[in-house]
């Protein structure tokens, strides 16, 4: 009958139906949504981790540099104890180095940097280090707490990480 001719032309059907595509794309869209959301949160998390990591690394480098010079220094010239013997803090420290020159570490608030300069204990103008010791410094506090001026406490905060150092001056 004519129906058979009609049926013979039916091609063999293979492939994915619309429902499967819809379900698949819905699920993938959802996965994309979750991963996108997760990526955004991880991006923030990552930025925070990088900040903490950078902060700690600059605290390490800064502390090591200052510590090596302060370790063999002769005496701390500034800050010193208050007249009433209470501790005194400042955002800079000035000390006489192993070879007698005056070294100063100071905090440049506008640039948020710690810089170093050497003032010859003798003729000659002060010399400034070309590069800062540390960048992006939120705060730095040098505290004198010893009447013999042979101990300086350093407290730093860089990008959410805290650095707590003290240096005892071995020389007199």
């Amino acid at each position: 009958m004519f129906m058979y001719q009609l049926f013979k032309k039916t091609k063999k059907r293979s492939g994915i139906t619309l429902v499967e595509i819809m379900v698949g794309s819905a699920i993938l869209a959802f996965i994309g949504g979750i991963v996108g959301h997760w990526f955004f949160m991880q991006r923030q998390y990552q930025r925070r981790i990088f900040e903490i990591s950078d902060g700690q690394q600059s605290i390490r480098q800064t502390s090591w540099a200052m510590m090596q010079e302060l370790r063999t220094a002769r005496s701390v010239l500034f800050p010193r104890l208050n007249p009433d013997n209470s501790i005194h803090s400042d955002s800079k420290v000035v000390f006489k180095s192993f070879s007698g020159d005056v070294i100063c570490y100071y905090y440049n608030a506008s640039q948020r940097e710690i810089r170093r300069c050497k003032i010859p204990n003798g003729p000659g103008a002060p010399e400034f280090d070309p590069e800062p010791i540390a960048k992006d410094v939120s705060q730095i506090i040098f505290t004198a707490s010893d009447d013999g001026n042979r101990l300086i406490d350093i407290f730093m905060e860089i990008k959410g990480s805290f650095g707590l150092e003290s240096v005892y001056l071995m020389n007199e």
Partner: protein
Amino acid sequence: MDVENEMVDQEMYIVHISNKKGIAIVMVIGLVAIIVPVLYLLSRLGTSHVKLAVKYQENLQTETTAFSGSNAGISRLRGNLRGYQNLTNQLIGDESYNLNLRPTGKGFFQQDLYFLLSNSKIKSHHYAIMAEAEQFNPEPDPPVLVISRDYWNTIEPYEIDQIADVLSMQNDRGVDLLRLDETRDYEKNATPAQYSSEMQAKSDWLPEELVPDWPEIVDNLKSEKLSM
């Protein structure tokens, strides 16, 4: 008839599952392709960061251990232990230090003069301290008076029980001591007023953070100025 029913059930079940497998595979591949690279990147950050922190901790540990070693040297001298002394692998906590006391002669009051050397090594980190010590004679019993001065530090890998290394440490330290002599001579040759006015004159080149407190610093310098 039952067997055939079961066969048909079986087939229907298999056909049913194969559709789902396609979707599941796509999902898993998508997840893996996204997550794995991100994790790799971040785990590299984690480990490198931990390495840096541990390296710095070891560095600080060498310095503290060497410093304790020099204190142990001073204590030995106070205990009237005399002559050449070379202690190796002295444990303090988990770390070890070496201590070397080298007699360099007699002082004005017949006290023994020494080079006091202490060093510590943790993995690739070195720290060495060199100082001069004067050990006086017991009156009559120990502890004897010990004066130590001019502590000098370095992170070069010197072996303190090798004469060649000690000589090169001496030379490096000597360069700084030469400058020390210059500054001391400058202080001795100037009168207090002259010294403070010259130092005060430098405030023109100073950074503005330092200028307000510079007079107080000059006063402190003047109070510590060597006279003769």
